[in-house]
Every structure is written in structure tokens, then in C-alpha cells.
């Protein structure tokens, strides 16, 4: 009785929550519905009815009249995005943990000034440097290559800052003890500091991966070859063609799912990254 009454009392609260969720997810639902239409529905007498009379799962998995999203260009786009985001993430983890190590555990002249220079890089967004960077990549002959896609993003002032914040909580006695055991700096970093900093490294990794995966402007500039397109450029170019549009919608849904899962699973890290690593818990 009591339980039932409590549920009843909460009913309005749930109704509001569900209504908000439905509104927010509505664009996703319409895109999903559109992805199940045959292309003729968009060409003849558009816009089509919301839900198709005969859902075309072939738009996803193929086997229908036209090839599905998983057979067409999308696997290649997804692979390119995965390689690009993976290499950028790995690169940032390596360069920032090395730099953060030097700023935490090494003493050298000009350390604080150099750290300020690293922080200053955070104030130069890529968007304002695209023209010279594009010229550099062209000069290196790296257009339409993975090197060209990743090179400008392999180092990060933000990541160095984030990891340094964390490394500073590691007691210096540990370094002294490791030195007595004959550990050099690289071995200490790899065997002691890195294993102790899982949470901070995960924050940086999730943040770097999602940012890299979602990039648009740079991949648009440095790739022309359809085989080198990332998934973001891929969906943009595929949805521009009306004769393939339902497959493009299916590809959009497929490309959104991995990021959605990642954000749901690691949301805490992502928010922590956004707040500069300042939020606990």
C-alpha cells in the first residue's frame, strides 16, 4: 500500500522527466525513422510519413535493393576515425605524461616559465592556426595521410596541466626510494607514476578520444580522398546526396552509437576533464 502510494505521489515527477527526455531524444528518433525509409519516399512527394510502412533494415545491413551502411563507405570512415582518434589519444598520453613528469619531478632552470609557455598553448585554439598548419602539412606532403590528420594534436598543454596536477599528489619520498633502488627517471615514470595515475590518465584519454573523434574542420581540410575521410566528413558528404539519403541516415545512427556508449560509460571522466580535473568523485 505504502509503496503504491509513493509511486503515485511521484508520478508527476516521472511524467515531467519522461516528457523532457522524449523532447530531447526526438531528433534522434526522427532520424532513426528516416533511416528505415526506402529512398523513393524522399524523392517522390517529400517529406515522407514519419514511420515507414515497410521498414528497410537493408539500409543498415544490406541485402535490400541498395547496399546498406555497413557495406558501403562507412566501415572505412569508421576505421579512419578510429585510427585517428586512437593515435591522437595515445600520443597525448605519452607526450603529456612525459612533460608533466619533468614539471613535477625534475628540477631545472626556467621550469616555471616553461610551464607557463605550455599553459599558454591552451589559449591558441587550432581554429586560429589552420592556415599556416595546412601549409605545413602540405609542405610535408602529408595531405590525405594519417600523419596529416593527427600531427597537430599529439601534444597538449591541457593534458600536461591535468597530469601535473595529479603527479604532484604523489609523495616525493617515493622518488627517493626508487632512486635508491637504482630506478632511472624513465623507469620510475613508467613503473611507479603511471600505474598510480590511472584516474587522471583515463580522464585525459576519454577527453582526447572524444574530441578527436568529433573533429570536423581539420579532417575536412587535410583529406580529399574519400578513402581517407573520417566518419564526420563521411556523414556530411553522404547526406548531401538525396539519392543515398536513407543509407546516410543509417550511417549517422551507426556512427553516433559508439560515442554515445563511450560518453554514457565515462561521463564522469568527461565532465572532470571539462572542469580541468577539478571535480572529485
Amino acid at each position, binding site marked *: 500500500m505504502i509503496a503504491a502510494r509513493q509511486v503515485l505521489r511521484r508520478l508527476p515527477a516521472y511524467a515531467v522527466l519522461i516528457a523532457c527526455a522524449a523532447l530531447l531524444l526526438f531528433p534522434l528518433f526522427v532520424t532513426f525513422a528516416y533511416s528505415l525509409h526506402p529512398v523513393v519516399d524522399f524523392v517522390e512527394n517529400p517529406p515522407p510519413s514519419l514511420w515507414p510502412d515497410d521498414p528497410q533494415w537493408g539500409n543498415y545491413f544490406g541485402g535490400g535493393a541498395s547496399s546498406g551502411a555497413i557495406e558501403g563507405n562507412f566501415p572505412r570512415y569508421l576505421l579512419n576515425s578510429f585510427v585517428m582518434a586512437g593515435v591522437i589519444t595515445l600520443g597525448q598520453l*605519452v607526450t603529456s605524461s612525459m612533460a608533466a613528469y619533468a614539471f613535477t619531478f625534475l628540477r631545472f632552470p626556467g621550469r616555471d616559465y616553461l610551464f607557463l609557455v605550455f599553459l599558454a598553448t591552451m589559449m591558441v585554439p587550432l581554429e586560429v592556426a589552420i592556415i599556416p598548419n595546412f601549409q605545413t602539412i602540405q609542405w610535408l606532403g602529408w595531405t590525405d595521410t594519417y600523419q596529416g590528420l593527427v600531427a597537430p594534436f599529439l601534444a597538449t598543454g591541457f593534458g600536461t596541466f591535468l597530469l601535473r596536477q595529479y603527479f604532484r599528489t604523489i609523495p616525493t619520498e617515493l622518488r627517493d626510494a626508487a632512486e635508491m633502488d637504482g630506478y632511472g627517471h624513465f623507469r620510475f615514470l613508467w613503473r611507479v607514476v603511471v600505474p598510480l595515475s590511472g584516474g587522471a590518465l583515463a580522464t585525459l584519454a576519454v577527453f582526447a578520444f572524444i574530441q578527436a573523434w568529433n573533429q570536423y574542420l581539420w579532417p575536412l581540410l587535410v583529406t580529399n580522398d574519400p578513402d581517407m575521410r573520417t566518419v564526420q566528413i563521411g556523414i556530411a558528404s553522404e547526406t548531401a546526396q538525396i539519392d543515398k539519403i536513407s543509407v546516410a541516415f543509417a550511417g549517422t545512427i551507426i556512427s553516433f552509437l559508439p560515442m554515445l556508449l563511450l560518453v554514457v560509460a565515462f561521463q564522469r571522466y568527461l565532465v572532470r576533464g571539462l572542469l580541468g580535473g577539478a571535480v572529485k568523485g
Partner: protein
Amino acid sequence: MSAPTRAARRLLLSKPVRQLLEALLFLAPSIVLFGTFVFYPLGKSVYLGFFIDNPFHTRQIYVGFDQYRDVLTSTEFAASLIVTVTFTLYTVAPAVVIGTLLAVLANQRLPGISIFRTIFSSTLAASVAITSVLWLVFLHPEIGIANEMLNALGLPDVGWLKDGGWAVAEHDSAWAMVGAWFYDPNWALLSVSMATLWMNTGLFTAILLAGLQTIPDELYESARMDGAGRWDEFRHVTLPMLSPSIFFASVVGVIFAFQAFGQFNILTQGGPVDSTNVVLYSIYEEAFQNFRVGAASVQALALFAIMLGLTLVQFRLLERRVFYR
């Protein structure tokens, strides 16, 4: 390394120099990358701004600061700034309201509330490309359903993505242009803003939820003991305690708005007639379509100056957050 050379090195290099070399071993990768892709481009942009191309792009002509003056005082640049600031307003102000509302709703103590927390923050996962495509289903001139939805409510059609409104019409002055916001809406810009707002909703909700969770329960308890109702609680406890997070989220939102590119590229290509030509899009067009690299560089430096100011504000806020903890 053999013993004598090592000894010789010890003799030659003083301790600070040895320390510096050791540190450089760790810092070199970052320093090389920053030098190449952050600091060199800034200098190069300043340099490029001194030159214009001749009409056939065969020769660069040195014009010094003239190009800086011409570009920065041009009406086109002023127009793209106005469009950018309007876009910022359209995407940040509503996101503050919606984000606060959703965060407060998702912060209730209810069974299963974590599902709603996840859903409300989920649009954070959407890239600009995904977001643009999701909104094409409403805004596309042929296949979009936004006008059907308006008609169902008894409202007339709207020129989504196609009607530049005040940004296209002729105006006697900048004031007249701003005045026209209210009777001649720039539907193209509003369309792109709506899509961006949807993406921002998740971002704002996530940041504000994190902010809400730092408010101590005791504050609510003592408010209740003073006989405060729900609305009093919200006004006198939640809102003041949340305001640093709201301010922080807004600064992030403004920075994102100035960096926005993909949604314009996919949905409007800056048009119709520059009505959605934000600063970054006009940099892209000038540099990569009109090949006026010098003029584009000047605009990029102006964008840099704006973003520099915004980032400094953001840092201040972060510093305060860390400080108060």
C-alpha cells in the same frame, strides 16, 4: 659511453645545464610539436597578413599593415562579427535556462533517476556533424518536417536555412539592423542555432549537475527548517550556489560558439548571402575557397584575440573552483 668522455662531459657541463638537458629529454616531443603547430603558425599568420595576392595568385605583394586596417574596418568583417555574437547569444542564453532546468530535474532523489541524468547529458556525445544531420530531418527544405509540425499547430511555414532575414535586408545603420532582429528574424541563423543549442543542452546539463552535487544537503535542510517552499529553496539556495557553475558553463559555451564551424559548413555554407557567415566560416572561405590567405590570416588573428580574452576568463573561473575546494 666510455669513461673518459663521461668524465669530460662532467667537466664541461655545469649542473644546471645537465639538469636542463635531462628535462629536455622529457619535454622535447611537446616542445617540437608546440613550436611547429602552435607558435610558428601565430608568427606566420602575422607575416601572411602583410601580403596580398595579385589577382592571378602568381605573386605576393607586400602591403604592410594596410591589409590589417582594411580587413578589420570592413563592413563584411563587422557583419560577420554581428552574426557570430548573435549566434553566441542564441546558443548560450537558452542553454543556461534549459540546462539548469534539466539539471535540477535530474537531481531529484527518485529511483531510476540516473537514467534521466544520462539521457539529459547524452547530447554531449554528438559531434557537430551528427547534430547537423539529426536536425536536417527538421530543417531540410524538401524532406524536413519542421514546417509540417508548425502547420499542425496552425502556424505558417518558415524559411528554415533559406531565409537570412535581417542579415540580408538593407539597413540604414547598425542600430536599424539590430532593431530588425525582432520583426525580420534570420531563420537561417536560428536554424543552425537550434541544432547547436540541442548539442549544448547535454554539455550544460552535465556541468550543472556536477555543480548541483557539490551543494551541501545541510543548506537545504536549514532552508526547510525556516519553512522555505520548493521555489524559495531554488531561489535562495540552489541558484546562488550554482551560479559559479552557470557562469563557467556559459564561458565554455561562448568559446564553443566562436569555434563553431561544422554546423555552418553542413547546414548553410555561410549563406544565404552571408547571413550565417560567422568569423570562422569566413576565414575558411577566404583562405580555402577564395585563396585570399592574407586577409584570412588577419581575421584569424582577430579571432585569436577574442578567444584569448575568453580563455583567460575561463582560467580565472577554474582557478577559483580549485581554490575554494
